């Protein structure tokens, strides 16, 4: 069975950059990787496809296309299979239901989530509704990771995600810190990880190179393979692929969370 992971975190915290760089790093190691972007921006795959935007499952559904595997599964950097779920028009319909429908369709027409070594679900911002956690509920995810910075808001979201995971009896397999330059950041996130019953897997320093490469349509793994930041992603990828048991997280109460950010 492939390793099936979901990366959760507050909107804008860098889930897609992390997901695509980890995907690329794993592909470099010879793993077969599938990345499923569940964000309406569909930006998980764009840096694996040299800036090319692929049609999303929901775009095709809206157009009434008889969807076949070749219409939605695209080969990116070193054979990473890229799939984007997309979403309805803003303000119309229900994105959560969209994910449920898209996932069941994907399962029906493609073996991309079975015939692979690693599946990465780049899930929308936060656990909010039944639809958004469909990959977990449908048993398509066996490991969850939380991405946060040391600031209060992302930590609040991370803690909320822990609440969601514990409710779903889903293990948390690691916390990743995507640095925003907060004071004592690594210590704060490391402490947070420990207190919810997990561990800090990686501290990703803020590096403008990530954005520069993204703007050109590449991951740093592909465009700047010898950079320090690429080495950080490689290390994270190695740690994700390594065998490690997760634990159902225990969320903190809000006052403890606030205290933590003042370390």
């Amino acid at each position: 069975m492939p390793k099936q992971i979901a990366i959760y975190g507050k909107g804008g915290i860098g889930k897609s950059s992390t997901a695509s760089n980890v995907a690329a790093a794993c592909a470099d190691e010879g793993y077969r990787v599938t990345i499923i972007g569940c964000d309406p921006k569909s930006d998980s795959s764009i840096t694996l496809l040299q800036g090319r935007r692929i049609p999303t499952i929901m775009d095709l559904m809206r157009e009434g296309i008889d969807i076949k595997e070749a219409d939605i599964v695209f080969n990116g950097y070193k054979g990473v299979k890229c799939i984007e779920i997309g979403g309805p028009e803003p303000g119309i319909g229900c994105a959560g239901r969209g994910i449920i429908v898209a996932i069941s369709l994907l399962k029906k027409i493609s073996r991309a989530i079975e015939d692979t070594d690693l599946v990465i679900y780049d899930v929308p911002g936060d656990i909010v509704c039944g639809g958004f956690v469909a990959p977990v509920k449908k048993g398509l995810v066996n490991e969850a990771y939380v991405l946060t910075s040391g600031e209060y808001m992302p930590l609040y979201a991370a803690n909320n995600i822990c609440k969601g995971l514990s409710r779903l009896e889903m293990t948390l397999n690691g916390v990743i810190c995507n640095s925003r330059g907060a004071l004592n950041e690594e210590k704060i996130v490391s402490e947070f990880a420990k207190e919810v019953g997990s561990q800090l897997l990686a501290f990703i320093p803020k590096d403008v190179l990530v954005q520069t490469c993204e703007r050109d349509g590449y991951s740093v793994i592909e465009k700047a393979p010898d950079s320090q930041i690429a080495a950080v992603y490689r290390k994270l990828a190695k740690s994700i692929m390594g065998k490690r048991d997760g634990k159902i997280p225990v969320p903190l109460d809000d006052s403890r969370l606030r205290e933590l950010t003042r370390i």
Partner: protein
Amino acid sequence: MPVKKEKEPLIMHPRPSSIVAALYTLRDLDTDVVILHGPPGCSFKHARLLEEDGMRVVTTSLDETGFVFGGHDALVEVLEKVIERFNPGRIGIVGTCASMIIGEELHEAVTQVQPDVPVIEVDVHAGYRDNTKGVVMALESALASGIISEAEFERQKALLKEATMVEKRHGAASKEYLEPNRGDLKYKVAGRLLELLKQGKKGLNILNAKKETAFMFADVNLAVAQVAEKLGSGSNIVNMANLDDNVGLPKNRRNAREIKEDLKEKGFEIHHIIGGLDEYPVAGNTADRIIGEKYSDYDFAVISGVPHALPMDNIKNMELFSVTNGPRQVVPLKDMGHTHVVVEIDLHPKTLGVSHIVESEFGATLREMVKDA
């Protein structure tokens, strides 16, 4: 290049629902209690009707709060209560539009409660063009829990495909909008039929009914045979019926047996068995073949149940008497060339929970009118 799906025609008149279709299938599988996971009013009328057949249907009664915050706890609670109160041997859980949109996982509740009897979970909403989708989903789940065999599953699926085609060709799914219609006046149609019998014309008397509706449709055929007997032309009538009791889900076999026993007791002889009660979409083909071989020169045919499933090939020159229970089936039948179409109003509610033939209005009309003939 991505290929656009062929757009299915829009059908505006009300159609059967996949949720209800799943409920009926669970009944045919002898499920004791079904939990409808959704709002209290969902599928109310059919839920009530199905209780006539001895199956309990309860609801988790999701309200606005449930839609927003999820209905998992409600489902767990109702599942536990159902086990305690009814001690069922087999449980069904059926989704609704509301619970499926908010992403409820029926299986999570089952995992939590761990009932020691089989639970058939059906993740169904009513947003399918063909209500048979609900049947297939219920059967898939029954197959997964080992309640039906792979062979029976495949058989049912093939029948459902045919049933859908029958409806699309000449049934309620054949036109964008069909006006409900009460059909021809029964006494006029009965009068014409008695006339033909008096003239000694040769007639086919065909029951091709869907499942439990046969309890009343069989009475139509029974009445035709009885009045023919009274008028001395009993030997001119050939009876066919889809009452094979060796095929289908448990309830259908039982019902076929019950109806046959009733008919036998009343001296009705079935000359040709054309299929089982769930074979109505294909039994017409069997009837058609037999007619082609032996009876193509007959003068008239009475077809009760699903007359539009009978191919017109070998009966097009006969005077056709159709008995249906669908007010929206009248126009398509007339279009096919059925001269007389009568509708048994409210047939279905009257045939739930019964184990004997139920009197039909057309049958009663025939019996009454033959007294004066």
